[in-house]
């Protein structure tokens, strides 16, 4: 059913249709509306049977989910940024134990300095934890990916996180086609655990594994993620059949068939990128876009195939590995290393900095002329940077950088020209 609805709410309602049995709630911007909405549905009886638990921290949220999942219940929670880091021990633990928990990650920057706006640093911080990570481009996709996520998680016995850009998607009111209960029930069967805590068949879960077997356990987890590379497209196809619209899949290419340059990105920025790419196409550049939906497992083959005809790849990313370079870029570089493509990285949107189509168009134009640096921080205010560097070299007690820059800017929010 078509609804004009806030992204968080769309996700909440869709998750509710997936019949979660234990939902853990710990608030952190920008995820709060998701769990609040679910809480209301549980309280009113609209979502039942369901245990809605107000936990005392994100660490508890993931831990309660672990316990619930191990005892055979479908478990769900949501978090962002600092909260994800606070639960990171449990995030790794859930994957290591093979528990099919689904979590919404409302992508948000990680401090210090504290920042509640969107970027992908939180998702990148846990990319090695063993979770499947899916990135939604739109609110529609954010809602739909949750349905697929539960089914995927339970089939493979791996936890899945659905990433949606904080504020940009979570707080945007858009048109979304929400499924109904019957559709979801037909697509998503009840949870059949691979292992469960059960007095009639006792087992010990969570043994200590030493050098003699640890490598094999890790490899098995890797193989299961690789299995996902087949399952995700299959489940996406099944989704389209069931719900009548495409959603999910490993990658979503746009105008890549004859592209010289392919722009690669994750998440909502793809919308702006497509607008910029259309403009460049109109200007005569043969440029295309590859949106990556499944970031983990990383779809090496699909990416390589999409890039095989291009001579240049530009990775637009909202995350950055301090002291090194782009994060997504590294994965893309690995996937495309023998295609002969050059690779350029554009870092943008950190801490919620708006990404304008004009800036992107300029960057893409430069790329077409081979004039794009290998690493570009989009719309960086070099003057501010220089002023702070000078301060630091001239005075030992130069003070906290963040506060100095804010004073220089004279404003908290970023400037828009």
């Amino acid at each position, binding site marked *: 059913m078509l609804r004009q609805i806030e992204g968080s709410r769309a996700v909440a309602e869709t998750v509710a249709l997936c019949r979660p049995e234990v939902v853990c709630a710990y608030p952190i911007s920008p995820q709060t509306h998701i769990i609040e909405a679910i809480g209301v549905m549980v309280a009113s009886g609209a979502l039942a049977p369901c245990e809605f638990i107000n936990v005392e921290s994100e660490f508890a949220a993931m831990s*309660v989910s672990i316990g619930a999942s191990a005892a055979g219940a479908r478990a769900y929670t949501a978090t962002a940024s600092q909260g994800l880091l606070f639960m990171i021990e449990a995030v790794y633990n859930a994957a290591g134990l093979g528990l099919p928990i689904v979590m919404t990650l409302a992508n948000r920057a990680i401090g210090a300095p504290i920042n509640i706006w969107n970027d992908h640093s939180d998702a990148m911080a846990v990319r090695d934890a063993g979770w499947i990570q899916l990135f939604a481009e739109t609110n529609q996709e954010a809602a739909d990916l949750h349905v697929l996520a539960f089914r995927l998680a339970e089939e493979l016995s791996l936890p899945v996180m659905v990433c949606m850009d904080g504020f940009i998607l979570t707080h945007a009111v858009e048109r979304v086609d929400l499924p109904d209960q019957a559709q979801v029930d037909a697509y998503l069967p009840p949870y059949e655990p691979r292992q469960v*805590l059960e007095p009639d068949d006792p087992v010990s879960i969570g043994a200590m594994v030493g050098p*003699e077997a640890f490598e094999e356990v890790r490899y098995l987890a890797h193989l299961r993620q690789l299995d996902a590379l087949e399952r995700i497209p299959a489940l996406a196809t099944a989704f389209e059949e069931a719900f009548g619209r495409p959603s999910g899949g490993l990658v979503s290419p746009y105008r890549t068939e004859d592209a010289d340059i392919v722009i690669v990105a994750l998440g909502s920025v793809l919308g702006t990128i497509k607008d910029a790419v259309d403009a460049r196409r109109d200007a005569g550049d043969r440029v295309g876009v590859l949106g990556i939906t499944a970031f983990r497992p990383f779809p090496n083959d699909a990416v390589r195939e999409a890039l095989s005809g291009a001579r240049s790849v530009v990775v637009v990313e909202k995350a950055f590995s301090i002291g090194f370079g782009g994060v997504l870029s590294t994965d893309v570089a690995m996937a495309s290393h023998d295609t002969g493509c050059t690779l350029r990285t554009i870092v943008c949107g950190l801490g919620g900095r708006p990404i304008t189509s004009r800036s992107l168009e300029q960057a893409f134009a430069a790329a077409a002329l081979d004039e794009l640096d290998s690493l570009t921080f989009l719309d960086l205010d070099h003057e501010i940077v220089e002023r702070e560097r000078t301060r630091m070299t001239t005075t030992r007690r130069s003070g906290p950088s963040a506060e100095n820059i804010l004073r220089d800017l004279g404003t908290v929010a970023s400037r828009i020209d």
Partner: protein
Amino acid sequence: MTTQPIHFYQVGSFAVGNRLLDDDGRTVQSDPNRTNSLDSGHRACQGCGEALGARYAIDAAMRASQGRLVAVNATGCLEVFSTPYPETSWRIPWLHSLFGNAPAVATGVAAALKVKGKSDVRVVAQAGDGGTVDIGFGCLSGMFERNDDVLFICYDNEAYMNTGVQRSGATPPAARTATTEAIGSEAGNAFGQGKDLPRIAMAHDIPYVATATVADLHDLEDKVERAMQVHGARYLHILVPCPLGWGSASSDTIRVARLAKETGLFPVFEAVDGKVTGVSPIRHRTPVEEYLSIQGRYAHLFGEHPRTDIIARIQAMADRNITTYGLLAEEPADIDPKGVDV
């Protein structure tokens, strides 16, 4: 307090069993068909008090729940020595997640069982003192505050033993650990620190809180039984000597626990809804020296330059406990958990 009346069957209510007692007068442990929840082949040290305490508590919980029990375990000695791949000593459904999250994981298990309509299956969470008092404290308090239906058992051996005997928030004053060595004027752990978890639990007004030791099996089992009769958050704090960490003889484990109680250093009591309702009285009041002198972690208090000043302070602590809790049968209890100052 202890509901067993003494029938003068030689060993009365103190020994594990007695050929002259009916089955219901004996402990769960005396039953040859006891669950042996923690079975042979585990890698605990010789004479490990925690291995004993765990089997005692979980077997009793299994009896009380008619075998419908799930256990969640924090990281620590108990978890490590009981489940090294490929061997597990647990005969019951058991889950280990992390060091600090046992209470939260148990909350999750309980929620799942509830939502699945398996109300007869009960949940026990267990952790050492480190996992309860320090790193698990946040989750524990959350579980208490929500009154989740979990029996949380803390096996208190008064330090982080599994990592090599380091100080925890439960380490008693003057005790030597690897991070509070017996060096300098304040030899061993400092005075005036530490958390009284049973009183903190009581401050949450949860339905049932009790302390126990491995030296009094009847009392321990009775408390598990009583705890299992109630639903909601329950807390059991069991003193379990560690021969390695305490520097006591492996054969002395039960004796040391007994002395901890008989000196008054470890008060054994139970509390319902935040108020102390019963005390296990001291049978033969004993000076703290007898307890301290058989443990290597207090060796620096004796010998050539005995620290009688420190021993006196420890004795004062014991005396205070005796007064506060009324541990000598003839003295009434004087405990108001929210009002007691240390």
